[in-house]
């Protein structure tokens, strides 16, 4: 694992936590869960001032804004040994798409490449880079796990969250049908084409409900908000949490879309 020791020779690699704009604004508890998991894995966690990776602009065809945000992102995070995000979508945006934003800019090419090499999605960082095999957490319930598209297809995140979940005391995993099929969120897609998005998330909600699981987990807050919002609209009693929250032992927090006061689990 020499490749993964800190370039500064420190025992605790310095990790820049990119909380993502959704976690920052909608569900800060996911950021704290990620920070705890990283600290438990022996990392020094830093949260530099940050906004967004630029994905909404990128997928809307606005290259200039995307490149500007990418430059800010790189400048804010490049001094850390690693950059970790509790999102396969945002980590995938950076790791697989930032290089193409700087094509034809030789001043940036090497810098972007070095930066992208140290960007990771949270669960894959814990398992693949830090060699974490288990977490000290308990969760009393049956969960089902949705594979978010970008993490799965751009970063190969599939086994890592399941491996960590297997170590959570009291937790049972019940796989849903088509766990690796899109939930219909798609960023701005869900508001640009609401009817199509709805048809896709309806199928997903039915597959989730069919497992009988009481909790839905995933690694991306955008997908979770979409699925949780649909499950709640349909009156289904399934809690939705970010996988980091359960892994960090924070699974008893009010779930996504649950009121704060009566949020204690069951």
């Amino acid at each position, binding site marked *: 694992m020499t490749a993964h020791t800190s370039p500064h020779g420190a025992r605790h690699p310095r990790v820049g936590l990119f*909380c993502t*704009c959704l*976690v*920052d*604004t*909608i*569900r*800060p508890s996911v950021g*704290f869960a990620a920070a705890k998991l990283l600290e438990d894995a022996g990392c020094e966690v830093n*949260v530099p*001032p*940050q*906004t967004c990776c*630029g994905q*909404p*602009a*990128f*997928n*809307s*065809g*606005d*290259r200039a*804004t995307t490149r*500007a*945000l990418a430059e*800010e992102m790189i400048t804010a995070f490049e001094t850390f040994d690693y950059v970790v995000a509790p999102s396969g979508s945002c980590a995938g945006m950076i790791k697989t798409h930032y290089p193409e934003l700087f094509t034809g800019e030789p001043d940036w090419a090497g810098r972007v490449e070095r930066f992208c090499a140290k960007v990771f999605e949270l669960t894959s960082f814990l398992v693949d880079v830090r060699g974490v095999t288990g977490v000290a957490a308990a969760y009393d319930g049956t969960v089902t796990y949705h594979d978010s*598209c*970008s993490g799965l*297809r751009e970063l190969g995140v599939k086994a890592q969250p399941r491996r960590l979940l297997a170590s959570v005391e009291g937790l049972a995993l019940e796989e849903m049908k088509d766990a690796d*099929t*899109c939930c*219909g*969120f*798609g*960023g*701005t*897609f869900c*508001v*640009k*084409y*609401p*009817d*199509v*998005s*709805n*048809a*896709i*998330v309806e199928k997903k909600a039915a597959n989730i409900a069919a497992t009988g699981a009481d909790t839905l987990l995933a690694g991306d807050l955008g997908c979770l*908000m*979409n699925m*949780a*919002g*649909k499950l*709640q*609209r349909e009156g289904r009693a399934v809690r939705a949490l970010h996988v980091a929250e359960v892994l960090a032992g924070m699974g008893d927090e009010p779930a*996504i*879309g*649950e*009121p704060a*006061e009566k949020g204690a689990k069951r």
Partner: protein
Amino acid sequence: MSVEITTPRFKDNAKKALADLPLQGALSKVGPGFIGKRAAAAEKLPEFDGLRDSARDIKNHTLAHLDLYLERFEAKAKAAGGHVHFAVDAADARAIVTDICQRLGARTVTKGKSMISEEIGLNDHLAAVGIEPVETDLGEYLIQIRGEAPSHIIAPAIHLNKDQVEADFRRVHAHLPPERDLSEPTSLLAEARGELRQKFLAADVGITGANFLVAETGTSIIVTNEGNGDLTQTLPKAHIVLASLEKLVPTLEDVSQILRVLARSATGQDMSVYTTFSTGPRRPDDPDGPGEYHVVILDNGRSAMLGGQLREVLRCIRCGACMNHCPVYHAVGGHAYGWVYPGPIGSVLTPALIGVEKGRNLPNASTFCGRCEEVCPMRIPLPKLMRHWREKEFERHLTPATQRFGLGVWAFFARRGWLYRPATRLAMGALSLLGRAKGRFASLPLAGGWTQHRDFPAPQGGTFQAQWRARQAERRAAPRQEASR
């Protein structure tokens, strides 16, 4: 079929498709059928992914030297006694085909499955000049008698169920006894076969598409499962092949590699039932075959794609795997896309062929889930190419004003962290207070697209960044307490 373009009305088309129960019933079988079969076929062939790389490389090489291979194909096809026609656009291609048919005094032409025929709107044109086109692929026959366009590039009538087919047959085949039993798929098949057999024998010209054109030999190749293509091209006086210029492949060896990924990706078959090679017309000692052999090679905007970012889409071998795996296609079916090519490949190709103004909906109507790219045998980066169109749209200010405004406001804040952080903290604080009692919103101003179908979770309150900084300040103030946590 009709080539009326309804792509600008994609949203309405989608809404209608989502409310169409027979269509939804038919679509529910697309995913489970195709996805499982492709996965099983790929699983059984250890070198499948290696073959995909090889197939991609072959096509990349061909496209890099397309002028050379086009010339070689033309020379070889002519040497075998065939004729090669280059058509600049759809009108050109229609005129070439019509001229051949009229010169031969054709009254009926049989047709094997051809997406290029759909692209150039050939059937309507032939009918307008008094030539009856008869589709002989079962799916194409079904949509022809219904006056529809194909809804899938390899399974054109996948949107129909058996009952609809029975009703159409009873309507169109009125000369057959009304009491006949059509309750089984096999009886429907037998009836179609009986009807088409006479058409095959009566046809003056047979028109097919081509899956490949082989430069080395001047050969055109069709890949079918029904055998209709062979009857179409063998029995009449002339065989006309319609192909777009990216169908070129250098050698037979190259074709044999790409064929190994084609059927597996399409239907999960190792090979389709018929793979038919045609080189020139009937020779003096051949027992049968057409007297004339023509290949119409269509450009229709493709040569312009060669030099740009869209070049990669010209690797497409029309297997349909991208739409078979697409959640949007599964939801709305092929007709909602509003023109000839549906699914992810259609979302890339359509704006190139009909213009981004008319086609702009399609590259936007994607979740970018990436499954199309994951299964594409030719490794075409379909999401990247859809994003290319979104960039063109943005550059040309074709994005709807509300979206552009929303993106602009968001970008203004996201690029000014010093403003973004306090603004989001305040906004989320307010939203959190408003949503505290229920934990979520059933409706929200400016978020109707979201809340018409699902609830929106109330933010927890504050922002992570602000809370983190507060906690770090506490930690620094009370390091001992923190350490004992």
